[in-house]
């Protein structure tokens, strides 16, 4: 009865059950951390294919661990999925919400990922400099940066349905007026995170963003270091994913 009441109050089913499936595993979900959407599964799939292709092309290369950064980790779904897909990957994850950091680490341990393979820490994108990084990843040199940052434009926030609006973290959803606040932080920090070598950045964004980002970075943008590579649609046919590169 209590469960029905909670559902009638539009509480997300993932919070009521306490867990949900993401790709081929199950993760704990807890308010107010954002519940992973199916689109985010597609984001992870793109990254996985990317890494597999890169590995194919550099077969002779190092046995060095792949360094991955998950910005705005939430439940930890993205970083955990990548750590599972690539046993030689080391994932660093950051989030500004303490609940998200705790939940991400909890999910990682539950899925048998050690501290060395997956570690979430409390930090914003803009503040994540070499000094801020903990001992576990003192090397600021990421091969891949992945993010599903808050990206909903402020004016769209009032159009949200009650289950999202009343139960999930506003800070995990709203990306400022145009929705690009956190995306801008990420793009600004990318050259620093990339270190010496190539770094690929995949992001899930609002449907209005891919074209905007392309025009800002790729075209006549004042950004010499970052390169806009492509954008892709999700399974619903909406512009959803962008790929950037730092050489």
């Amino acid at each position, binding site marked *: 009865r209590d469960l029905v009441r909670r559902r009638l109050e539009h509480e997300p089913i*993932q919070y009521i059950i306490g867990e949900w499936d993401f790709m081929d595993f199950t993760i704990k979900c807890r308010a107010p951390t954002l*519940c992973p959407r*199916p*689109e985010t599964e597609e984001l992870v799939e793109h990254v996985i294919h990317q890494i597999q292709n890169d590995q194919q092309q550099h077969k002779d290369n190092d046995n060095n661990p792949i360094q991955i950064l998950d910005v705005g980790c939430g439940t930890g779904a993205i970083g955990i999925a990548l750590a599972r897909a690539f046993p030689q990957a080391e994932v660093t994850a950051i989030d500004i919400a303490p609940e998200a950091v705790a939940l991400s680490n909890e999910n990682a341990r539950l899925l048998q990922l050690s501290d060395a393979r997956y570690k979430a820490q409390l930090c914003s994108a803009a503040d994540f400099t070499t000094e801020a990084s903990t001992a576990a990843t003192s090397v600021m040199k990421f091969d891949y940066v992945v993010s599903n940052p808050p*990206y909903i434009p402020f004016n769209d926030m009032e*159009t*949200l*349905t009650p289950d999202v609006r009343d139960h999930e973290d506003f800070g995990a959803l709203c990306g400022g007026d145009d929705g690009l606040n956190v995306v801008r932080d990420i793009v600004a920090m990318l050259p620093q995170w990339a270190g010496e070598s190539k770094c690929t950045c995949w992001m899930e964004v609002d449907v209005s963003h891919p074209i905007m980002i392309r025009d800002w970075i790729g075209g006549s943008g004042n950004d010499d270091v970052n390169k806009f590579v492509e954008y892709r649609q999700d*399974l*619903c046919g909406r512009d959803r994913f962008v790929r950037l590169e730092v050489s």
Partner: protein
Amino acid sequence: SINNYGFPKITKLNLEKMDDAMVQRLENISRSFAALTERLGDPDVINDPKLLRQVMSERSKSEEIVGAFDEYQTCIGDYDGAKELFQESAGDEDMREMAREEMKDLEPKIENLMSRIQILMLPTDPNDDRNVMLEIRAGTGGSEANIFAGDLLDVYRKYCQANGWQATLIDTNTGDDGGYKSVTMDVKGDKVYSKLKWEAGVHRVQRVPATESQGRVHTSTATVAVMPECDEVDVKVDMKDIEMSTMRSGGAGGQNVNKVETAVDLFHKPSGIRIKCTQERSQLKNKELAMKMLMARLYDIENEKREIEERAQRGSQIGTGGRSEKIRTYNWKDSRVSDHRLKQNFPLSQFLSSDIGPMIEAMIAMDQEEKLKVAME
């Protein structure tokens, strides 16, 4: 005089053994079997689980026939020995009688071994050992067809359980008044396809539907498809030929929405096959399941072609092998099931209590008989 299997009946002191060509083939098989047995002791094989499984599986295929051939060789040796004794003990009536008795005892044994070997040498369906996806689709008849599909599902579920197989529903499309518009079940176990394949085709039911108020008899149908499981080795699917989309309603997606609608719609352009997958909690799992179902269907289409050809070639009496062939009619009034391939009737109660074993065994026997005839020609 010829016995049931087409071998000349054993006459006194005149045992017709297997011909040399046959013996040669069997000796080759025994040699390969011995080689594989040796490989099982090879440390390279023991330390590689995948390779070990492959070798064991390959070896087990010939185990029965090698065993039967070994027995045959032993019996022939004993028979020849007894024959020699018989010939050499002329005048010693007791000795002769003993020898004759031994030959008489061995003759039926050898006869049976030869026919067993003959059957084991018959071409087998390469898919016989595989697990399957069993799909039941309501045909003509509206609600009644849906209910009938549900009845068939009940029978098959119990039959799978009785055989110690693991049956899991992987896709369901329920009917408004009960039963299913369509339902797919994954069945895993020992030699599943070899038995369930005989259930594939159109099943027709004649009865007064539960929803019928005036007591009239209706005829409805349901189609059963039994698809052997397959992987990329069996069926090549080019991802460019596939259109995948979600079944979500319009409006915003992404972070804006949390409706956990992970259903996937897959369309394979070259074949026109469309698969909707709604079962799983994650979109990825639905995608993978849809691909699995597509590949099973494509593989089954190929199998169907091959089977139709093979059956036509041998002038088969047990049906064309086509998947849309009418194979059975279930008549409630007369309490009977008519199998149109066997041209035989079975009690309806037997079917309703999920005892479909006899029907399946009869199909297997008839299929084997036909194959034997071809082998003898």
